[in-house]
């Protein structure tokens, strides 16, 4: 386990060096999308149409932030549960997505796809949303404004604290962590 300063967009080399359990400070542009936005993004990919952002090297953050106050860059913005995006993620990984940020474990299909397509999954601390907001330096809605909190936003983050859960070698921090602390009885 190591601490890594990481900047987006991510390339295959950067991603392959990450290991499950690493602590990461992520900086650069990332994009927000959750259930409703994923449905639309995947439809665009399937139709061969252009997406609202370049998927190649991209990191998607599963979040629906609280609305910002006047003058506030970002209100509370912690991760949502990732498994709901599992059905959409392999296709996005095949089209260049390199990382996703959420909470909770991923399906075996997503994990296999991350090994095959060289992608990683990061965990942010769910419920620690006011703290996470302070690492967001810019935010703008770039698509699907009608979805409200579920709109796609471009964020610029600075040293956003994350843990690497799934790396490109098939390791899973949830499995490893629970196995280490599980007791009989």
């Amino acid at each position, binding site marked *: 386990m190591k601490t890594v300063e990481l900047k987006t967009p991510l390339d295959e080399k950067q991603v392959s060096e990450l290991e499950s*359990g690493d602590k990461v400070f992520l900086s650069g542009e990332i994009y927000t999308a959750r259930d*409703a936005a994923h449905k639309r993004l995947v439809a665009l990919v399937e139709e061969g149409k252009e997406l609202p952002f370049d998927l190649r090297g991209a990191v998607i953050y599963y*979040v*629906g*932030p*609280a*609305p*910002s*106050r006047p003058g506030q860059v970002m*209100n*509370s*913005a*912690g991760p*949502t*549960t990732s*498994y709901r995006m599992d059905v959409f993620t392999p296709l996005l990984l095949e089209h260049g997505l390199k990382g996703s940020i959420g*909470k*909770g*474990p991923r399906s075996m299909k997503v994990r296999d796809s991350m090994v095959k397509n060289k992608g990683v999954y990061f*965990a942010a*601390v*769910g*419920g*620690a*949303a*006011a*703290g996470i*907001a*302070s690492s967001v330096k810019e935010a703008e809605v770039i698509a699907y404004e009608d*979805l*409200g*909190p*579920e709109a796609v936003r471009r964020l610029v983050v600075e040293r956003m*604290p994350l*843990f690497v*859960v799934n790396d490109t070698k098939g390791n899973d*921090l*949830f499995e*490893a*962590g*629970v*196995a*280490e*602390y*599980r*007791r*009989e*009885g």
Partner: protein
Amino acid sequence: MRELDVARITEAVKDLSIRTNIYLPDDVKKALRESLEREESPMGKEILQVILDNHDIAEKEKMPICQDTGVAIVFMEVGQEVHLVGGALEDAVNEGVRQGYKEGYLRKSMVADPVIERKNTTDNTPAVIYTRIVPGDKIKIVFAPKGGGAENMSEVRMMTAADGIDGVKDFVVDRVSRSGGNPCPPIVVGVGLGGSFERCAMLAKEALMRTIGEPNPDPVYDEVEKDLLKRINNLGIGPQGLGGRTTALAVHIKMVPCHIASMPVAVNIQCHVSRHGETII
């Protein structure tokens, strides 16, 4: 008869919606602090510290603790001596939610059609409202914003008498085990026993409102709670599911009588942002 304008209810619900989303009850904060002292996993400790720091940031900046400011669950006990004037009670509650979520810059998380259209109602209404008529001339309002992630890990099971208390315990532990890191552990586990299909689910939610550290009034079920808490924390799920000793802060059981053929059991999972507050008018 005491006459009461429903505008008072709107005002109370508005205040509660903002307050409960920024300030966590002291018992929950205390339980989290204590869990940090017990936690063995270094990553688990780090996560618990981040969670505790987040409470301070939320209070200082007047920001919601979690961006998921929840479906507005409202329990009301309305005294039968109260005569409400000025409009419909449920409209007044929803107006309070509407105003609180707007003025508090809280997330609007409700979709009108749950399955097909899923269009956001844009004001976090409707609230989920439960009203009981009780003796007296007061109105008690309990407001609990409930996040979706933990709610999704909840379950009702119609068990049989033959399953017994061991069957109930296995079901509760299994439900938590299958939830893993999804519901944002450390969690609070609400268990409803008896009643009917829908009543036991209600009981499980009501059980979440109990103060952590307050024992179950029934010593037999108090022991069951302690045993369940131990078994759940032995699962090793830990803070955020990344491994550790702190999977649950508490298990709360609430029970009522039931039919001779039935043994309904409900498990309602609550994330570590266990928000609830109350006002008496």
